[in-house]
């Protein structure tokens, strides 16, 4: 066992040094900026597109007093459900030829009018392309009804006393924490998976694999490579978390203290987050190292990356089913399935205060890490080094 660990350490030390001391590690540290920047970019584009295309504009052809009452009703409603969710209304004074005015407005591009509301508040009628938009019709009915009321400008007084938490808010906050933790775990592992898959390409392409295979067990090499990558990623994680906390402290009032507290408390949750990150990485890493070891070139690794990414997304989606209902059948299934177990259990830590399921889950996940590594090493010896006698597939696991 000591030989095994020393061999793994030799590989881990070489890989860790080669990774961390390379110039490309700087790019690796900057990697989270890219999804953040992409998210921001696509978010702003999406918001702009939504702003331009999704909010219908209705031209209101009515006397100024009617339009003012309608606008006041809209302002009141926008306080409740938000301005973005409401139909835009633009007022026009009635012209002599109302039919011609409607046609002109419906053909208008500035603003792009979806419908024309005429007839004032007493005899309203709507003309427009509204076949697939019952919400706009419903909103207009509500606005007209409110506008007809005499006291639309004065909402009833409702005194509010704020408390820190209530059951409803706590569950929602913890579900948010659970979802955020799962998402972070997923993206971190996703980012590392391609790197892990290409871990053996260097050794295979420069032929040093032969020297290593003659000096140690292949599973010791696998373990060394996996833990080198884990150590490098933990180093990066420390940098990312520190930078993230600093950023949050600067941009969010109350800093990290304002985040919703998980069910097991912050210290326990952070400890579990580190453990589950390690387990998630080791489980996916062992599987991807095994898959990547079959590849001979970087091109083959790239080809494998896409299906592997989709598989990870499916597993992430499976783990996400446990949020809000960790004790459901789906929740337990996601916790039991090795590859979704760390993400599921981290979400559980945010929502449930019990500790024993975590101890069982960590043990269960560790067993699977060992099994996948063992199987991966055997597969590598069998398929890459072409070692061992030929066995029927049902005896392969015992080869």
């Amino acid at each position, binding site marked *: 066992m000591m030989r095994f660990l*020393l061999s793994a350490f*030799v590989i881990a030390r070489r890989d860790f040094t*080669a990774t961390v001391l390379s110039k490309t590690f700087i790019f690796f540290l900057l990697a989270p900026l890219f999804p953040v920047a992409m998210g921001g970019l696509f978010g702003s584009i999406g918001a702009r597109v939504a702003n331009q295309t999704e909010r219908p504009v209705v031209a209101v052809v009515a006397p100024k007093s009617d339009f003012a009452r309608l606008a006041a009703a809209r302002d009141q409603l926008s306080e409740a459900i938000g301005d973005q969710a409401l139909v835009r209304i633009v007022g026009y004074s009635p012209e002599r030829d109302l039919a011609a005015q409607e046609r002109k407005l419906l053909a208008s591009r500035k603003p792009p009018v979806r419908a024309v509301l005429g007839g004032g508040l007493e005899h309203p009628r709507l003309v427009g392309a509204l076949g697939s938009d019952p919400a706009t019709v419903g909103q207009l009915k509500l606005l007209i009804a409110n506008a007809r009321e005499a006291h639309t400008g004065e909402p009833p007084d409702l005194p509010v006393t704020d408390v820190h938490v209530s059951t409803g808010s706590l569950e929602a906050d913890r579900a948010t924490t659970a979802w955020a933790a799962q998402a972070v775990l997923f993206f971190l592992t996703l980012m590392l998976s391609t790197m892990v898959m290409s871990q053996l390409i260097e*050794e295979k392409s*420069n*032929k*040093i694999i032969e020297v*290593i295979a003659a000096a140690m067990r292949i599973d010791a090499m696998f373990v060394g490579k996996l833990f080198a990558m884990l150590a490098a990623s933990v180093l990066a994680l420390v940098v990312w978390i520190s930078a993230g906390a600093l950023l949050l402290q600067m941009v969010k009032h109350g800093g990290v203290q304002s985040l919703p507290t998980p069910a097991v408390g912050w210290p326990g949750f952070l400890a579990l987050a580190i453990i589950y990150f390690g387990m998630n990485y080791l489980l996916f890493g062992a599987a991807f190292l095994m898959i990547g070891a079959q590849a001979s070139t970087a091109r083959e690794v790239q080809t494998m990356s896409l299906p592997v990414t989709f598989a990870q997304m499916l597993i992430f989606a499976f783990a996400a089913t446990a949020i809000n209902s960790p004790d459901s059948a789906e929740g337990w299934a996601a916790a039991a399935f090795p590859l979704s177990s760390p993400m599921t259990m981290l979400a559980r830590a945010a929502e449930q205060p019990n500790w024993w399921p975590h101890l069982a889950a960590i043990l269960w996940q560790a067993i699977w890490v060992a099994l996948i590594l063992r199987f991966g090493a055997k597969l590598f010896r069998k398929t890459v080094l072409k*070692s061992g006698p030929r066995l029927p597939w049902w005896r392969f696991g015992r080869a």
Partner: protein
Amino acid sequence: MLRQPQHNRADDRFAVEATDLVKDFGETRAVDGISLRVPTGSIYGLLGPNGAGKTTTLRMLLGIIDPSSGSRLVLGRDRPLDAAPEIGYLPEERGLYPAMQAREAIAFMGSLRGLPMAEGRRRADALLEEHGLGDWGKKTIRSLSKGMAQIVQLLGTIIHKPRLIVLDEPFAGLDAINQGKLEELIRREARSGVTVIFSTHVIAHAERLCEEIAIIAKGRVAFHGRVDDARAKLNSIVRLRTRASDGPWRSALPAGARREGDEWVFELPAAGPEPLLRALIDGGAGIETLAIERPGLHDAFVAIAGNKAAAEMAKEKPQ
């Protein structure tokens, strides 16, 4: 040089013992029942054309691959990887990390075999200095020539002072000067009690270095034993030049005698040279020159492995 601690073994006369090793790759049988015994402290050559099964045999002996059937005992262990700290291995396809410094690469290879990195660096500096590469210790592998990188890997093979050194086609890619240096290094290691096994398809290297050889052809051992024993499988060759072109002396020549230019060439008869000389003199041959040549390893190889295998070896890239 200090060696790794010896292990108690029932029979340490042989560093390597292989029995009926077989290796199949799919439907192809690469090694077909090879048995070897490599005496401890000897220089042992595996001789054969490319594709004969030499590398596969070495990889099985080292535990890189498992045999389909058969067994092997390496430094007394039936699992060769258990003896890995006492073995040095230079594979046929050389490989080092291109971004590593030469001294780091040597020390890393030692660390793979259990040598602490600090000690590895110290020994690497000494070895590089000894081999005239002292100035190159801090250069990266990618900045070295192919030959120099090969020397670096060779030094990495012996850095941990192994008891068994396995070299797969070690002379391939080396110029004549470095081939000479490598031959000297092999002899020096053997003098200090290290067992050296190397594979080659160049007969001259085996002839100069090896005490024992195994001639491998088509995955089988065609001959296994001392180089002298291989030569002894053939009779000496007689080259005779006479003043008389014909006469009674011709009856003294054996049946297989043939003309090569001005000479008669034939195998020395089993009775030895004296009756032959007497018959030639009595028959009035007028002996101008008579040379008795001991057959070389190449002749023995042709006789053992066949002309086809010898022709394949001759076709391969000369070293």
